[in-house]
C-alpha cells in the first residue's frame, strides 16, 4: 500500500483531471472509430482516417478565422472529410484499387498538403492565436474555438462533476453519435443492408441491394466523422493548428475498431481504454515519483494492447467477412 502511494500511482489515479482528460482524449478517438466501424462493416478499410482528421483540423481553423465563426469551421471540416472519403470510396469501390495503398497515399497527401498550406497561408509562424468567443470580443484573424460547457450546477459536484459535466459540447455529441451509430447499424434497414454488404456482397447483390452505393455511403460517413474529430482537435482541444497534430489518432481509432469487435459501443469502450492511456501519459508528466520515469513507456500501452487484440489473445474477433476485398460481380462465384 505504501508503495502505491509513494510511487505516485495513487495520487495520479484519484486525480479528477486524469479522468476528465480521459474522456477528452476518447472523444477524439471515438468519432473516427465510429466511422471506422461503419466503413468496415460495409467492407471497406479506411486507413486514411488519420489524414481526414488532420485535414479537418486545418480547414476548421482556416474557416474559423475567415468566417469568424467556429461552427462554420466545424461544418467545413465535416464536409471536407466527407469529400476525401468520397475519393477513397471511388478508388476502392469503382476502381477496385487496393484500399490500403490508396489509404496510405491519402494520408501522405493530407499530411503534406496541410503542412504546406500551413506555411503558405500563415507563414513561418503558423496559425494565429485562438480566442474563445464567449470570453469577450475576439479580434478578426483569430481562431474562434469551441469552449467547454459547464453544465448548470452539476459541474460543481466534487470529482464526478468535473469529469462528466465540464466537457466540450462535442463530447456530448460524440456520446449521442455512439448511440445513433448503434441504432443505425443494428436497428435500421440501411444498417442491416450495410452489414450484409460487408459480410457477403454477392448475396446482397443477388437480393437486389446496391452494393456500390452502400459502400460509398459508409465510407463517406466515416470521412465526415473523421473530419468532425479534426475540427474538435483543432478548435476545442488545442485551439490552433500544428503540423501533423494528429500523431496517430486515426490509427489508434482503427485499432479501437478491431478491439471493439466492430461495434460502436465496443469501439467506444476501446477508445476509453486508449484515451486513458494517453491521458495517463500527459498526467504523469506532472506527477512526482518514479512512475513518471516510465511515462513514455506507458504511452505505448494502447499499441501493445492492440497487437494483443489482433493476435486473438483476447478472444477471436472476426472482421466482416468481406472487409478489405473489392467486390467484382463478374468474378466467378
Amino acid at each position, binding site marked *: 500500500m505504501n508503495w502505491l502511494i509513494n510511487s505516485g500511482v495513487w495520487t495520479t489515479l484519484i486525480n479528477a483531471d486524469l479522468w476528465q482528460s480521459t474522456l477528452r482524449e476518447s472523444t477524439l478517438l471515438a468519432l473516427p472509430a465510429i466511422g471506422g466501424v461503419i466503413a468496415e462493416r460495409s467492407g471497406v478499410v479506411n486507413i486514411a482516417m488519420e489524414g481526414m482528421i488532420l485535414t479537418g483540423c486545418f480547414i476548421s481553423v482556416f474557416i474559423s478565422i475567415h468566417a469568424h465563426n467556429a461552427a462554420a469551421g466545424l461544418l467545413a471540416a465535416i464536409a471536407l472529410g466527407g469529400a476525401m472519403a468520397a475519393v477513397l470510396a471511388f478508388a476502392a469501390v469503382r476502381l477496385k484499387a487496393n484500399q490500403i495503398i490508396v489509404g496510405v*497515399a491519402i494520408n501522405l497527401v493530407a499530411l503534406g498538403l496541410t*503542412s504546406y498550406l500551413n506555411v*503558405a497561408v500563415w507563414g513561418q509562424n503558423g496559425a494565429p492565436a485562438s480566442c474563445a468567443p464567449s470570453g469577450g470580443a475576439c479580434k478578426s484573424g483569430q481562431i474562434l474555438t469551441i469552449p467547454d460547457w459547464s453544465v448548470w450546477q452539476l459541474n460543481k459536484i466534487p470529482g464526478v462533476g468535473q469529469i462528466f459535466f465540464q466537457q466540450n459540447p462535442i463530447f456530448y455529441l460524440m456520446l449521442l453519435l455512439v448511440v445513433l451509430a448503434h441504432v443505425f447499424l443494428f436497428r435500421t434497414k440501411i444498417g442491416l443492408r450495410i452489414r450484409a454488404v460487408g459480410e457477403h456482397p454477392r448475396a446482397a447483390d443477388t437480393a437486389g441491394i446496391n452494393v456500390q452505393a452502400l459502400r460509398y455511403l459508409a465510407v463517406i460517413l466515416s470521412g465526415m466523422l473523421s473530419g468532425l474529430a479534426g475540427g474538435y482537435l483543432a478548435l476545442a482541444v488545442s485551439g490552433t493548428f500544428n503540423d501533423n497534430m494528429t500523431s*496517430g489518432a486515426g490509427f489508434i481509432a482503427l485499432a479501437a475498431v478491431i478491439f471493439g469487435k466492430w461495434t460502436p459501443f465496443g469501439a467506444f469502450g476501446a477508445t476509453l481504454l486508449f484515451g486513458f492511456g494517453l491521458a495517463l501519459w500527459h498526467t504523469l508528466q506532472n506527477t512526482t515519483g518514479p512512475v513518471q520515469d516510465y511515462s*513514455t513507456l506507458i504511452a505505448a500501452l494502447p499499441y501493445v494492447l*492492440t497487437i494483443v487484440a*489482433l493476435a486473438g489473445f483476447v478472444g477471436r474477433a472476426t472482421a466482416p467477412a468481406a472487409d478489405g476485398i473489392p467486390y467484382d460481380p463478374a468474378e466467378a462465384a
Partner: protein
Amino acid sequence: MSLVSVDEDTVQRGFSYEWASGAIIPVTAVVLALIIGALIVRVSGSDPWNAYSQLFNGAFGSAYNISETLVAAIPLILAGLSVAFAFRAGLFNIGAQGQILIAALLSAWVGYSLNLPGVILIPLALIAGILGGAAAAGLAGLLKAWRGAHEVITTIMMNYIALYLSQYLLESTPLGTPGPMQQHAQPGFPGTPPLNASLPIIVPSSWVANGRLHAGLIIALVAALLFWFILWRTTLGYKIRAVGLNPKAAAYGGINVGWNIVLAMLIAGAFAGLAAGVSLFGTEHQLTDTFLPTAGFDAIAVALLGRNTAPGVILGAILFGAFEHGGALMQSSAGISSHLIEILQGLIIFFIGADALVRYLARHGVIHLPRLQRKEAVA
C-alpha cells in the same frame, strides 16, 4: 488443412499482383503527381516552374548536390528493398519505420558502448541492427502466419511502440533524469553518445568538397544485389514469390505458406535494419530522436515505384533522395515549403495504387501500355 494454420484466404487477402511490364505505370504516376503538385503551387500563389527548377537544381545541379542526393538515397534503397521484399511475398510492410528505429537503437548501443576498431565495430553494429529489424518484422510475420493478424495494423502499431521506446530511451524525463541511452555530456539533448566509428567517405574531396557520400552506398548496392539473388536465384526466393503470387499452387507444390511468410518478413526486417545501421555510421554518427523520420514511409513509395525489383528500387530511391535534398534547397531558395515533397509522394502512391486510373487512360489512348500479363488469382 496445412500444418501451420494459415488460412489461405488470409494470405490471398494480402495482395499479390504482377503489373504490366515496363516502367509505364510508375512513370505516369510520377508525371501525374508532378502536374497536380504544380497546380497546388500555383494555387497557393507561387511559381511552379521556379519550384521545380530549384528542386532539380538542388538535386542534381552540382557535384555536391548529386553527392548529397545519393547520400539521402542510401537508406531509402535499403528501406525500399525491405518493403519490396515483403511485397513479393504478398505482404504489406508498413512497419519499415518501426523496424528501422528498433534496429537503430540496437545498432547505436553497440556502436557507442563498445570501444573497438571500426573494422570490427561497424560490422558488429550492423549485425545488431539487422537482428533487431528482423526480429520486429518477424514478429509481425509470425502473428500473421500463426494467428491471422493483419500485418498492416500490427506493423503500424509497432511503429508507434518503437517510437515511444526510442523516446523513452533517448529523452530526459520531465524531471531531468536522462534516458537510459541518452548521453550525459549534453543534458537535455535527446541523443546517444557519439558512435565510436564511422563509415569511410568514398568520394575524394577533390571531386566533391565536403562530400559526405560514404561506404554505405556500396553496402546498399550489395544489398540490392543480394535482394535480386535471393529472390531469383535461390529456392527460398522461388518459394517466397510463389507464395506471393499463388498461395494455392504453392501449397499444392508442398511449399509451406506460413513458414515462408515468416521468413520473408525476417528478411524484410533485416534490410530495414541495415538501413538504420548504415545511416547511423555513415551520416548521423549518433542516434537522436530525429533519426530518419520518414524513411519507412518513403520506402513504400520507392518500392511501389520500383515495382518491387532491385534496379527499380535503386532508381526510385535516387528519385526520392533527389526530392529530399532538392526539396530542402527548394525551400531555402524558392521559399516553397518542402512539404510539397510529401504531397508528391502521396500522389505518386495514389496513382500507382489506383492503377486502374492509368489503365483507363491507356484504354483511351492517352498513354500507351505494353501488352498486359494476366493477373494471378486474387480472391
